[in-house]
């Protein structure tokens, strides 16, 4: 196997923690144009995954896009792009959101934090960064200033022991409830910390200047509860938590209703709400909410030990093609395989039994609720 740090678009970018990853024995792979650690030599994906749920894992997510949107009316302006009520979002509160398109599909999923009535802090997926920035600029400028933060790093500290670490480094953050944030200093570095993440566990995300990221990451890793965790475990953790990965479980061809993300559409933006519609694709999406859709995203429990992965076809008892798997793999916390995918409406009820086609095998799968493991968000 050869190991080149390039992709077809040229050399890969590196995060501010690149040297640290290599030092820790990170197996570096290309991801969204960046060289990222998929796992670390000492542990491996399964151990990193289990450690995060048992204690605390530190993830470098600096490849993701961080932006500040500022100007009077920024909340109303942003409401044109996401089916969320940003006006009533509290200061230092966060909301999950979707960028929708005219056809009612999803351009990206993101987290919006209200820093002030005239300022939003936004985090978007690495793979969609450039296109999201262009989208925001096209719709918000010149009234609203769109400022990408290429010199800002992002760390995620997740797991039940994360709060023990934060209690030492920034005690104020232990008062935060899930989906809220605050500006704090960590070892003299100005950061913005939110109580959120992508694992289903309690945890924090720390936005900080790139020049201090290495120092702060090493400080966090100096706690014995903490291990460095790669993208491989990040994926198995979010899969167990039933969380979507854009580009896989969500894309421009899936609507929020089909993707079982109706919950993310604020009530005021729905039919009958006082700010009904007014976002890109609203007519399609609101109509789907009132009527029905033909496919739905569901979770699957897999029989046996063969992982059922993205791309696998799903058939019913008669061998008819009824759906496709969009995410799947081995779930270390369950010691079993799980998957997520889309099925025709009729196959969506819990308990529906189907088969996944994997190589020459028909693997029995059953529609089950997600998340596959219990959530541990801190609600106060």
């Amino acid at each position, binding site marked *: *196997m*050869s190991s080149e740090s390039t992709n077809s678009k040229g050399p890969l970018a590196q995060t501010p923690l690149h040297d640290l990853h290599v030092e820790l024995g990170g197996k570096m792979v290309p991801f969204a144009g960046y060289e990222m650690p*998929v*796992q670390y030599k000492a542990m*491996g*994906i*399964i*151990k990193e995954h289990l450690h995060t749920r048992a204690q605390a894992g530190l993830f470098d997510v600096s490849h993701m896009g961080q932006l500040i949107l500022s100007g009077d009316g920024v909340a109303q302006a942003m409401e044109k792009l996401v089916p969320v009520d940003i006006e009533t979002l509290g200061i230092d509160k966060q909301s999950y959101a979707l960028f929708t398109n005219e056809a009612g599909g999803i351009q990206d999923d993101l987290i919006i934090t209200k820093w002030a009535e005239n300022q939003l802090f936004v985090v978007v997926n690495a793979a969609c960064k450039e296109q999201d920035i262009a989208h925001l600029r096209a719709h918000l400028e010149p009234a609203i200033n769109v400022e990408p933060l290429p010199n800002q790093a992002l760390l995620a500290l997740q797991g039940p022991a994360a709060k023990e670490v934060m209690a030492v480094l920034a005690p104020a953050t232990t008062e935060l409830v899930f989906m809220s944030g605050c500006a704090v200093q960590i070892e003299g570095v100005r950061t913005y910390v939110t109580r959120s993440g992508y694992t289903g566990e309690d945890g924090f995300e720390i936005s900080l200047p790139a020049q201090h990221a290495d120092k702060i990451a090493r400080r966090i890793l100096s706690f014995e509860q903490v291990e460095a965790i790669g993208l*491989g475990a990040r994926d*198995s953790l979010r899969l167990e938590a039933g969380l979507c990965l854009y580009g896989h479980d969500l894309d421009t061809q899936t609507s929020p209703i089909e993707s079982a993300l109706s919950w993310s559409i604020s009530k005021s933006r729905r039919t009958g709400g006082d700010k009904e519609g007014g976002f890109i694709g609203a007519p399609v999406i609101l109509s789907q909410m009132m009527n029905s859709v033909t496919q739905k995203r569901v979770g699957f429990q897999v029989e046996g*030990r*063969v*992982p059922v*992965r993205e791309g696998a076809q799903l058939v019913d008892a008669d061998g008819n093609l009824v759906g496709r798997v969009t995410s799947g*793999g*081995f779930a*270390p916390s369950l010691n079993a*395989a799980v998957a997520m995918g889309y099925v025709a409406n009729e196959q969506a009820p819990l308990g529906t039994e189907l088969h996944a086609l994997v*190589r020459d095998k028909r693997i029995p799968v059953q529609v089950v609720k997600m998340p596959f493991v219990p959530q541990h968000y801190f609600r106060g």
Partner: protein
Amino acid sequence: MSTLKYTKSHEWILVDGEMVTIGITDYAQEQLGDVVFVDLPEEGRELVEGEEAAVIESVKAAGEINSPVSGTVVAINAVLADAPDTVNQDPAGKGWFFKLKIDAPIDDSEWLDEEGYNAYLEDEC
């Protein structure tokens, strides 16, 4: 007197008269990552050289083993059913995959000895 050889696709082959044992090398297990399932051939199956004999599923990916020789499967490693991570822990020993009884003389011209395999790893991997 058994001899241990390696293929460029990172399998090891232990030849002991008519019996051949197959496994994957430490390099291969490291590339695969945590193994979660091994799909072994059934005992009695006749394999042709080059035919897909086993599939290894790791957390991240799947890899195949193509049989380096023709023969009949006479034993498979039952340990791997409950402990697939044995492949990661001890790929050269307890993590063996299957044993074949060969039915024709072996052509080992493409295989490497330990020194040759290590050189191959250094140069090309």
